[in-house]
């Protein structure tokens, strides 16, 4: 496509590596290659999983309850005769969409707040970030439990909890980068050119925040998965009979000796995804630092 005019936006884009190069570097190291593969596989399962599951995620075949893994039921069946393989796969959709959407919204909101507040500075910035600091002083699980105790457990409230818990963290990270960028000459010149606030924030400052943000987003995603699973395990998150991984661990905990497969496959799924996302985040960080 031909471009009529060279814009500042193109500088921002050109500062990011191309998708192909990103992939090449992501797959260069064995650790990040593994992480990326795991994440991609689980994402594919989340999107197309319900087409490949042999049984419904809540379907109960009472005559086949508590069967160990076999060709018929790859991961065995749980106490009520539900296929654990189908539940783990459909569970991927639930947990990845909740954690994904939650962390995306948190990253977007946190970025907006961080950019704006740090650039403007002054008393508003002071008050806002002292408040965020006080939230960050509390363990996120505690805040989540308090919030869910107030609004009641549901998919939407879990989403809300992720956003509320992670916005301050993202905002603080963004703010620190903005504060370092603000005094630089190219911002000064944009201001003297008389550019609008939105232009300065999104076209001039945001690109320098993006590398940090990409790593932060990946980290938030992995912690969000962990948070959703923890809330499910504590029984205040997604409600039964949802195939939520954390909830499956909770429900099958007493059955650890009877149907260990119904307990350990969801546990393995949580570990695998969280490890995968973390390794991928390391990869992303390396790509971006190489680029700089």
């Amino acid at each position, binding site marked *: 496509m031909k471009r009529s005019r060279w814009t500042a936006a193109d500088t921002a884009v050109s500062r990011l590596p191309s998708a192909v190069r990103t992939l090449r570097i992501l797959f260069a*190291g064995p*650790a990040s290659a593994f992480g990326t593969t795991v994440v991609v596989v689980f994402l594919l399962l989340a999107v197309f999983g319900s087409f490949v599951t042999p049984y419904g995620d*809540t*379907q*109960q075949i*009472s005559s086949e*309850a*508590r069967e160990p893994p076999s060709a018929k039921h790859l991961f065995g069946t749980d*106490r*009520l*005769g539900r296929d654990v393989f189908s539940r783990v796969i459909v569970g991927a959709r639930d947990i990845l969409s909740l954690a994904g959407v939650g962390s995306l919204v948190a990253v977007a909101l946190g970025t907006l707040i961080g950019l704006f507040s740090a650039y403007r500075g002054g008393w508003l910035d002071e008050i806002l970030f002292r408040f965020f600091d006080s939230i960050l002083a509390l363990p996120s699980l505690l805040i989540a439990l308090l919030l869910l105790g107030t609004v009641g457990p549901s998919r939407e409230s879990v989403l809300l909890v992720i956003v509320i818990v992670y916005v301050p963290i993202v905002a603080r990270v963004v703010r620190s980068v903005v504060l370092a960028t603000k005094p630089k000459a190219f911002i000064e010149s944009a201001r003297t050119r008389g550019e609008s606030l939105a232009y300065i924030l999104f076209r001039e400052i945001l690109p320098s925040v993006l590398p940090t943000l990409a790593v932060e987003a990946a980290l938030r995603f992995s912690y969000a998965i*962990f948070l959703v*699973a*923890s809330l499910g*395990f504590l*029984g205040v998150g997604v*409600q*039964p*009979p949802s195939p939520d991984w954390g909830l499956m*661990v909770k*429900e099958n*905990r*007493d*059955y*650890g*000796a*009877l149907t260990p497969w119904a*307990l*350990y496959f969801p*546990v393995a799924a*949580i*570990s695998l995804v*969280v*490890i995968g996302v*973390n*390794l991928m985040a*390391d990869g992303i960080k390396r790509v971006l630092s190489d680029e700089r």
Partner: protein
Amino acid sequence: MPIHSLIRTSLVVIIVLLIAGCGGATGTPPPSSVTTAATNASTARQGTLRVAFDIPAKLDPAFASSDSEIAILNAVYDYLLDIDSASKPQPRLATKWETSGDGLTYTFTLANATFHDGSALTAKDVVWTFDRLRDPAAKLPTSDLYSNIASIAANGDQQVVFKLKQTNPFFLFDLSDNHALVLKANASDLGTKLNGTGPFKVTSYSPENRIELAANEKYFIKDRPGVANLTFIFFKEQQASVNALRGGQVDLVMRMPSALFKQLQSDSSLQAVQIPTNGFDLVRLRADRKPGNDPRVIKAFKLATDRKAIFDNVALGFGALGRDSPIGPLFKSFYSEDTPLPARDAKQAKQLIADAGYPNGLKLDLHVPDSGDRPDLAVALKEQWKDAGIDVNPIVEPESVYYGNNGWLDVDLGITGWGSRPTPQFYLDVMLVTGAKWNEAHWSDAEFDKLAKQAGTTLDDSERAKAYKDIQRILIERGPVIVPYFFAQFGAIKKTFTNFNLQAFAGRTDLAAIRMTK
């Protein structure tokens, strides 16, 4: 991979595995060696029995209700009489009793017992105890139960005479109610000062952690108690108490989910015991408003339910299959299988729902407390009812929320656990007759009410059996209730102890009978 991310990821894995594997004990981990404290070596009693239970909240007998509270009180105090596993009254403080010909006067003769403070038990103490429990002004939980008593009087020091207003075939059972532990007359601070006649004396109490007791050397029943010391160690979670049993920190655990019991069965160091009980989970639909006020809807719910599948997979086959009535197979002469339970027929159920004016099916919230096997029962029902066009949304709540503000009496569709009682009449009177205190289904059926009253007052056992038979038929045909199973009660004790005789209400298990194996 950088070192720090290695550490981070391994931490994540460890935390996930920890979450999966852990329960939490309350307080400090119980030390394993409280055993054989210096006690009277002249008796055959030896050893310390360490029992795991949940944290007791109220130790005043009038307010105690949980298994742990009753177990502690049953060790410190005595009942007038106990009900054995065959639902027969057995003597305890009352060594014998006589009933007048009209069935209105009961005379009890008392044992020569002494309180832990050294004073002797007299008839006055028994009179004071029951006058307190029945005083309408005191508004104790027992005042309804004993409202039929006209008077209680001492006849000398050793005899107590109860006079009733109306005949009550279950009066002896009522006297053995969990709250009816005999106290010293004019006792005060009952929640903290435990002065009973019972087999054990309290030596130390550390709230939310443990309570330690020593044998009462002057106990009036020969050879009881069998151990020198008894310690209750408190746990918040059943998984934690089972872990403590396997780890050797406690010797006895009672009450646990079926799945945990199943894994203890294979442990060779334990004697794992299960007994059937009269307790059950009740699935009920409010019958006084839409949609439950249409008999077709009630019938559809019953037809859509596969009780056998639930019994096999939710109760793991422990206990007994239910027949939509609280009169279970343990009430031998009262239990009946004369009315067949219709086989599951989701198609017919769907048709009935449509006929009742819901051609697109029904949508309802199913409220369920987060205890026992109830959440699993809700999930199993959701799937079964789906085939009949009944779409329920299980709402799993902590018990405090489910029962709080009487919410359980208000909701349309709910699951409630009902504990084991020695007579079936209790369930009918408080749960099913019109206007009963806990008539959670808000059901009202004239024929049922008449039969329930008849069964509760007649002194003729065969007449009562017939009334109960009809009641079971009515409940199967049109009662807005489903009883999928009766629970089993579970217990497991180290094989170093013997004489463990588990009761349906675990708190009433006689811990004084247990002794060390030779």
